[in-house]
């Protein structure tokens, strides 16, 4: 599903964010990217949805070399990738329903599809009955669930999560992880950057560890260390 081949990315002459990184992620796999801040986790995620381009190496997503993809095709690539963030990136002037519907609306999905899919996905993430609330009326965990609903409503092949539990207390974080696990079990590939040691150890999934832009460990059913 995702393949990196000798990828190098630097933001300036001194700062190398990623050096010669190579790995494969299979369909329906769940992968943790771990490592301290600035080790290159976010850069890896940004390379996978073409928010960044590498200097060297190739990034393949769903069988396509996305570095050679023309800019005009990038939106179509992104429709197959859901994104989840530490700060949720919800629109504060829109309700829960509108936030999720927005993702379908702006890619031109018809109204009847939106009316059908949004309640279904809100039900899936456990927010049925809170459709008309605004983000500020929700707890952090609920806001992250809205953000997951928005990322998943279009049934993407891949979910990229950047520290999704970073702002949440442990119990709430666990709830989010159970939800991501359920989504993963439907066949969606999940790549999650985190430095939440407890969660990585609890989930026992594949772990790719980064240190100053270099992959130092790639372990199936790994722990944080």
């Amino acid at each position: 599903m995702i393949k990196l081949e000798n990828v190098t990315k630097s933001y300036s002459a001194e700062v190398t964010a990623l050096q010669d990184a190579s790995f494969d992620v299979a369909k329906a796999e769940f992968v943790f990217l771990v490592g301290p801040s600035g080790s290159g986790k976010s850069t890896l995620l940004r390379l996978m949805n073409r928010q960044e381009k590498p200097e060297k190496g190739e990034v393949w997503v769903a069988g396509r070399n996305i570095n050679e993809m023309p800019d005009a095709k990038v939106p179509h690539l992104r429709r197959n990738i859901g994104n989840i963030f530490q700060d949720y990136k919800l629109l504060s002037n829109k309700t829960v329903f509108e936030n999720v519907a927005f993702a379908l609306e702006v890619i031109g999905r018809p109204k009847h599809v939106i009316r059908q899919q949004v309640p279904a996905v809100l039900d899936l993430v456990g927010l049925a009955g809170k459709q008309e609330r605004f983000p500020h009326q929700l707890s952090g965990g609920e806001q992250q669930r809205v953000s997951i609903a928005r990322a998943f409503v279009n049934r993407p092949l891949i979910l990229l999560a950047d520290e999704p539990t970073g702002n949440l207390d442990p119990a709430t974080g666990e709830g989010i992880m159970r939800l991501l696990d359920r989504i993963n079990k439907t066949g969606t590939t999940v790549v999650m950057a985190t430095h939440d040691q407890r969660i990585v150890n609890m989930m026992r999934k594949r772990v790719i560890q980064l240190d100053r832009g270099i992959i130092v460990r790639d372990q199936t059913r790994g722990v944080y260390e």
Partner: protein
Amino acid sequence: MLSRISYTFREMWASLRRNLTLTVAAIVTASVSLLLFGLTLLIQRGFDNQLSQWSGGVELIVYMKNDASELQIREVREALESTPNVVDASKLQYLDLDASFAEAQRLFAGDPGTLQLLTPENMPTQFKVVPTDEASTELLDQLSVGFRGLPGVHSVVFPGKEIDVLTTLRGFIGVRLLLITAFLLVSAILLIWNTIRTAMFARRREIEVMKLVGATNWFIRLPFMLEGLLQGLIGGVLASGAMLWFNQNWTSGVKTFPSESGFGAFVVTDGFPLWIVFWIVLLGMLVGAIGSGTAASRFLDV
């Protein structure tokens, strides 16, 4: 498709309302500059009408009596053509009854009193005389005096320097007004550009989300571009209204001038103002498209 269109227009309206002060400033600037552009065209046209009698280098007109015979007309023509050092025979023009009547309609458009009195039965016909390069004012003056007494001649008009004054004035006003117009149009473009930039900045989080969920750049840009286009369009419509109102006031004002004022032809009464409306609206939309198009392309990266 329908949902895309409704999205685009909904967002455009929302953005217009949110940014009301900047939007109003942009529209006002656009309309003032477009109005000035329209007035410049109108004034130029007024000068052209005023000078139309004298276009093509004509400096002297010999009016023939309405009942002048064929023979008398031929004799005057021959007399004019026999002064090669003063009259450029190749450019000598004779306007018969129909042509003179048509010209009079234009010349006295702002003077309906005189216009009413003119009929094909009492219209003088005329010779339009283009002097040669070497013909001096004195020679032309002598010529005009000499022709006054010929049989069949009604009168001879030789305005001399007046034409030069009007022509110079036309160029002076035209160039400078167009220059001011150009400056104002540039500021209108910059204001629209800034309005769109502000609108995009206000919605940067939405744009970020849109890009991440795979909205195309055109989908994101379009409401902003339409917003700018609409600002230009509204500016153009306001300017058109003001220009037409201006023209109407001027025309009815000129009608109250005494006939000898010489300003009877300084009006625009044909379909020309509608042409100006067309150009103003087109230019307004162009200004809006340039301002918003460059802003929308430039500030899309979040």
